């Protein structure tokens, strides 16, 4: 099969900035993302994994895991030292449902995704429920990226950048 349909390009720096923005925003808004219809409000927190790389190299150069790694000095130091986020594990709560997922790389692949427990019994219903939860997760992440995309291409972004830079430097 010839791969003559390569699709929409990946923009590695944009997805890395998206992950950083999620991290920064979650710390500054107590994790509350007001995403509007159809998603509504979502609470988001950084879970137990952050992985960094150099922009010019796809190999990971620093991985932080365990309890609350986003609060560690090493995590900010990695950013200040020129490393960029390649993987970020987040937890999210929408209504009473909790999702955990590692967003990975320029494609934002879903890795080690933990969906809400399925309570239905039988053969078909659990499958539909699980696929529904996956769709819900994709909807939330999509809404977060849309929110970021509008911010990143708008005038407000120029005000956000110095705030994140100060946060990275430990000044905010």
């Amino acid at each position: 099969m010839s791969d003559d349909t390569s699709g929409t390009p990946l923009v590695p720096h944009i997805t890395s900035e998206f992950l950083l923005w999620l991290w920064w925003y979650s710390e500054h808004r107590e994790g509350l993302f007001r995403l509007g219809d159809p998603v509504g409000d979502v609470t988001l927190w950084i879970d137990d994994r952050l992985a960094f790389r150099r922009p010019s190299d796809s190999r990971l150069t620093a991985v932080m895991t365990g309890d609350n790694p986003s609060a560690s000095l090493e995590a900010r130091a990695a950013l200040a030292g020129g490393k960029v986020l390649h993987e970020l594990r987040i937890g999210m709560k929408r209504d009473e449902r909790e999702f955990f997922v590692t967003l990975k790389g320029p494609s934002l692949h879903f890795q080690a995704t933990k969906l809400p427990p399925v309570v239905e019994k039988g053969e078909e219903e659990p499958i539909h429920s699980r696929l529904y939860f996956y769709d819900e997760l994709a909807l939330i992440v999509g809404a977060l990226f849309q929110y970021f995309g509008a911010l990143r291409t708008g005038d407000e972004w120029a005000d956000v950048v110095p705030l994140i830079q100060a946060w990275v430097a430990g000044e905010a």
Partner: protein
Amino acid sequence: MGLLKGMLTAARFRVDGDLPTDWRERYRDGLLDQAFREPVVRTKGEETEGWVEIHNLLDTDFANHNRWLYHPWALFSLRVDKKRLPANLVRATLEKRCQAWCEERDTTSCPAAVRSELKSSLEEEWFARMLPTVQVTDVGWNVADKTVLVGSLAEGTLARVRKRFFRTFGLRLVPWSPLDILDDKAHIDALLGSSPEAWGPLSEQGDWS
């Protein structure tokens, strides 16, 4: 991958093309045609692949839509069986058999043709009695929004699934990009043309991989 249970890891694709009106029947036939089949003859370096039901890698009852179609999702798995002999063990055993051949004939060298025959015989004997390694990759196709999840992030596995998907359904899988989420073409163009921000004094402004 865990599309049905456990942790889920998946690469996303978009389906390039539209569904034919008789897609349910066509895709059923495609899955049946490209289903996994146990090889009749065991051959050297054997690798066998094909679609199996997502519920059990031994089942290929795609004639029954209820076993793979959970509207709007079509669910199935790619099974790949591989047999690979341990090269060092083959080499050492072959040496022993060559020595035995020489001793039987009171000679010191084993001709290349004989050596080759002994090797083939050894491989055939071992392939026949060894179990394959079995890799199963789940595929979930949302036929309504034309997205496909493939339960692996390994490039080789993804390439294999894309190839068989095309062979089965006549549709190409295009790698999904986060920019596909965006509705506004102006936003997409702006992001494609944007430059990376510098977050610290040591941030690199060179090419990104």
